[in-house]
């Protein structure tokens, strides 16, 4: 089971400090939400954990191994999976092919197998296909299996990214604003999916979201970032009522909150 500890993580872009001396743990089996104002450094944090940005300093320990400096592909192979805030599906490939990508680090057939169509190769191909189809069904977009990703409705593309991440068979799943652009009932579906993921996969899910309704429903644990620093951390109850969080992030509407 996954165990992730982040300590003194720091990221600098020229004069701008995107993440500032951040330390925290990702608890096992939990859904952890990272929230915070736009530009607080949430996505940057994901990018560092998954190897796309190299921290200026600090450590990211995954099962006791410091993964700073590793390539994204190596980190993925270790069991980290993510989705992207701005959709990054493979536009001209079918949904199935998209999801099959996730299986890459779990398989090993190379040139020779492919050229000779060895039994091992064929078996592995069938397995890849099988897992991919399962993942597609799991998130519920099987109706689109053979469609090109770019022709999918926006929401389905978000689900596609999740299916693709699940095909990695990850030890931790990172979702960057999975509900962006969803309406209320769609958000309910997503909440359901996150619940099913935690049940079926028994892995920590870390998500970035701006939708408090959703955050409130799915999270076990919330961390709030502001200007790259940790502003608050704890249970939804505590965090969402923290006046500092309200002031910096939630704001006050005349009546009640937007969904």
């Amino acid at each position, binding site marked *: 089971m996954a165990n992730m500890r982040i300590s003194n993580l720091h990221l600098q872009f020229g004069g701008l400090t995107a993440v500032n001396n951040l330390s925290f743990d990702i608890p096992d089996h939990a859904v952890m939400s990272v929230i915070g104002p736009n*530009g607080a450094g949430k996505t940057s944090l994901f990018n560092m954990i998954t190897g796309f940005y190299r921290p200026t300093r600090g450590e990211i320990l995954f099962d006791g191994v410091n993964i700073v400096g590793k390539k994204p592909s190596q980190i993925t192979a270790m069991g980290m999976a993510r989705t992207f805030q701005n959709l990054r599906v493979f536009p001209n490939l079918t949904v199935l092919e998209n999801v099959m990508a996730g299986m890459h680090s779990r398989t090993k057939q190379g040139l020779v197998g492919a050229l000779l169509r060895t039994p091992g190769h064929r078996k592995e191909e069938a397995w890849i296909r099988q897992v991919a189809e399962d993942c597609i069904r799991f998130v519920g977009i099987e109706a689109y299996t053979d469609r090109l990703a770019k022709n999918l409705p*926006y929401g389905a593309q978000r689900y596609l990214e999740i299916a693709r991440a699940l095909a990695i068979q990850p030890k931790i799943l990172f979702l960057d*604003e999975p509900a962006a652009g969803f309406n*209320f*009932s769609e958000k309910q579906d997503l909440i359901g999916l996150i619940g099913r993921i935690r049940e079926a996969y028994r892995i920590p899910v870390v998500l970035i979201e*701006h939708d408090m309704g959703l955050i409130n429903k799915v999270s076990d644990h919330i961390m709030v970032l502001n200007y790259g620093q940790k502003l608050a951390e704890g249970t939804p109850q505590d965090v969402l009522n923290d006046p500092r969080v309200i002031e910096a992030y939630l704001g006050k509407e005349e009546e009640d*909150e*937007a969904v």
Partner: protein
Amino acid sequence: MSTILDVKRMETFYGKIQAVRGVDFTVKQGEIVALLGANGAGKSTILKTISGLIRPAQGSIAFMGEDLTKKEPHTIVEMGVVHVPEGRRVFGGLTVTENLELGSFIKKKDKAKLAQNLDMVFQMFPRLAERRKQMAGTLSGGEQQMLAIGRALMSEPKLLMLDEPSMGLAPIVVIDIMKIIKQINQQRGTTILLVEQNAKAALKLAHRGYVLETGSITMEDSAANLLADDNVVKAYLGVH
């Protein structure tokens, strides 16, 4: 109030897929009209059709009495219809200021106006003012959204069409943006056609609303009535 935008029997296709199936609606001078609907209902497509990015197969789009269906996007902007597209689409490799300057492309001859409008936008979004020289591509999601709206305002539109302006924004910013939309509408008299997933926020702002389902309008009413409607509440607003 006079009708500023009059859409009749609009049908739009992507290749063989029909995304909009005979839609009729109007927007009156000075109104905020919300367009609600599920993912893939065709909301963005309607906006794209109005702003000339896609040609409708059928129907008419009259803006202040003039038909838009055969006009190029840039001409439509010149007529005063500005579309802030889904997904922000700021010019990543240009600075914040350059993005805003391009927003007033159609007013390129008027330097004074440019300066004045720049000030206005920076006042509205102080966060952008801090980042004048930053490449737009490195702004955070919320910052980019502000820039996209700011850029649209630079041309002083008569009709501003916003496609999911609250997407990806922190709640506090959503509140701000909604306030700003209201402010734009009230202070500048800009008519606004608003596509939103955040139905509650949208309806609180809007005067009227339309609900779109798989390419057809299924409901049309005042915002207050829609907010109170059972079906709308179930599908788009949720109950706490």
